[in-house]
């Protein structure tokens, strides 16, 4: 076979391209592999944390029930009281399990039912109506600024109820008597996003605490004496994120807090 210098040059060129291509391919493969392993490790860690969290928070109601049962067996607690105690603890355990399942499914972007056109405005109206009597009893004023018409989003009604409900729940819980909770819902003309702001004149959140706010089970010192399981804001964040939105918090201790959700 006759090979000219021409062929030699081509052969060399192909070799170089081949080697470079192989190198690039190898690097790309390595990076992808590393990224997948990291994500896998992260997912496993989250699963681990999730099981730990659930186990931990279920132990308390279980311990209470067990203790009360022991006392009932000794005759120290009546059957009626035990029944009431068991009912209350099982209700709170169930709520915890359901919330955690919802939270991890939402976080993992698992949607068990189809998205539908939901009117965010009517949900905000509905949830504020629920909280109206609680606010009134506590002498906390409710100021609402809601649109006349609808604000439709492709979402799940239950999740939007949870989102709005958790924000209102916190606002009312942490605002002392004589304070105000303001709820504003608008549509941003430039972006077309819905903007929900829940503002209160409550005890506020310190800067250090603001960092941990949306973490699962995290509770500020002030919140520990109030009802709740530390999942409310984690739920809000997970839902907002799953719909491609955002939630921000601004707060000054002693002055108040504002949460802004954009969807």
């Amino acid at each position, binding site marked *: 076979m006759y090979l000219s210098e021409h062929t030699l040059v081509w052969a060399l060129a192909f070799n170089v391209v081949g080697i470079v291509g192989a190198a690039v391919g190898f690097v790309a493969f390595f990076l992808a592999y590393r990224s997948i392993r990291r994500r896998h490790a992260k997912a496993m860690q989250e699963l681990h944390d999730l099981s730990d969290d659930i186990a931990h928070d279920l132990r308390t109601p279980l311990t209470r029930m067990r203790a009360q049962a022991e006392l009932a067996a000794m005759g120290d607690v009546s059957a009626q009281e035990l029944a009431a105690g068991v009912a209350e603890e099982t209700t709170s355990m169930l709520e915890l399990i*359901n*919330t955690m*399942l919802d939270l991890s499914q939402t976080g993992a972007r698992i949607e068990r039912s189809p998205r539908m056109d939901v009117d965010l405005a009517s949900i905000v109206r*509905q949830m504020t109506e629920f*909280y109206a009597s609680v606010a009134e*009893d506590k002498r906390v004023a409710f100021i609402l600024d809601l649109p006349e018409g609808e604000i439709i989003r492709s979402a799940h009604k*239950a999740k939007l*109820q949870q989102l709005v*409900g958790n924000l209102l729940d916190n606002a009312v819980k942490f605002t002392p008597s004589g304070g105000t909770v303001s709820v504003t819902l608008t549509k941003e003309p430039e972006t077309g996003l819905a903007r929900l702001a829940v503002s209160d004149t409550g005890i506020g959140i310190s800067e250090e605490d603001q960092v941990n706010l949306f973490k699962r089970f995290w509770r500020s010192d002030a919140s520990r004496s109030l009802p709740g399981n530390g999942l409310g804001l984690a739920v809000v964040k997970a839902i907002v994120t799953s719909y491609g939105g955002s939630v921000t918090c601004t707060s000054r201790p002693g002055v108040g807090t504002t949460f802004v959700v954009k969807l």
Partner: protein
Amino acid sequence: MIGRDRCAMHVLIVEDDAKIAEFVARGFREAGFRTTRAADGEDGLLQAQHGSFDAAIVDIMLPKMDGLELIRRLRASGNKLPVVVLSARSSVDARIAGLEAGGDDYVSKPFSIAEVIVRVQTVLRRASADPETVLRAGDLEMDLVTHKVSRAGESVRLQPLEYQLLEYLMRNKGRVISKTTILERVWDCSFDPHTNIVETRVCRLRDKIDKGHDVKHIRTVVGFGYVLE
């Protein structure tokens, strides 16, 4: 709930867990029903087709034939027996699937026995011919057509949430209704708040209905819920 001819209603309970089946059966018997139990889907289907039942409670997860298949076959044979499905809450699909297969209503696990009884009574009511237009409990009266509520002849003004709650309590007189049921079924709210929005409304309702009267209609059952008597 006793039928018009004073003969107790007969309920079929298709549930494979023996303890659950027994507790539910006991609850129904206390409420004046007769009960029969089937431990798997095949037996459940046979009984439903050949027995004389007024209603059935069917668990989805059953050996031999699952609950959905049971209901589908029942409906396919033209049987219109009112069925309440026991489903797992974490799956909305399971609930929808239960209704689509031909079930009339559902209860999620873990459930309260009182709630299952309420669901069965509701489907029985729907199946019966005449709808009531006025609900009564002692001197408390609620006209479902005019939406007027009165106690001892005196008119009572209720807000929408209170009205819905009272209607539900009156329709299910004597049954304990949990806060979760009130939120999910009466007020269509899938959010479980930690602040006591249910308690506050019940308080308001009590103020309007029971205050100033010796006989109190609305009673709290600690840990379980509220009941109207």
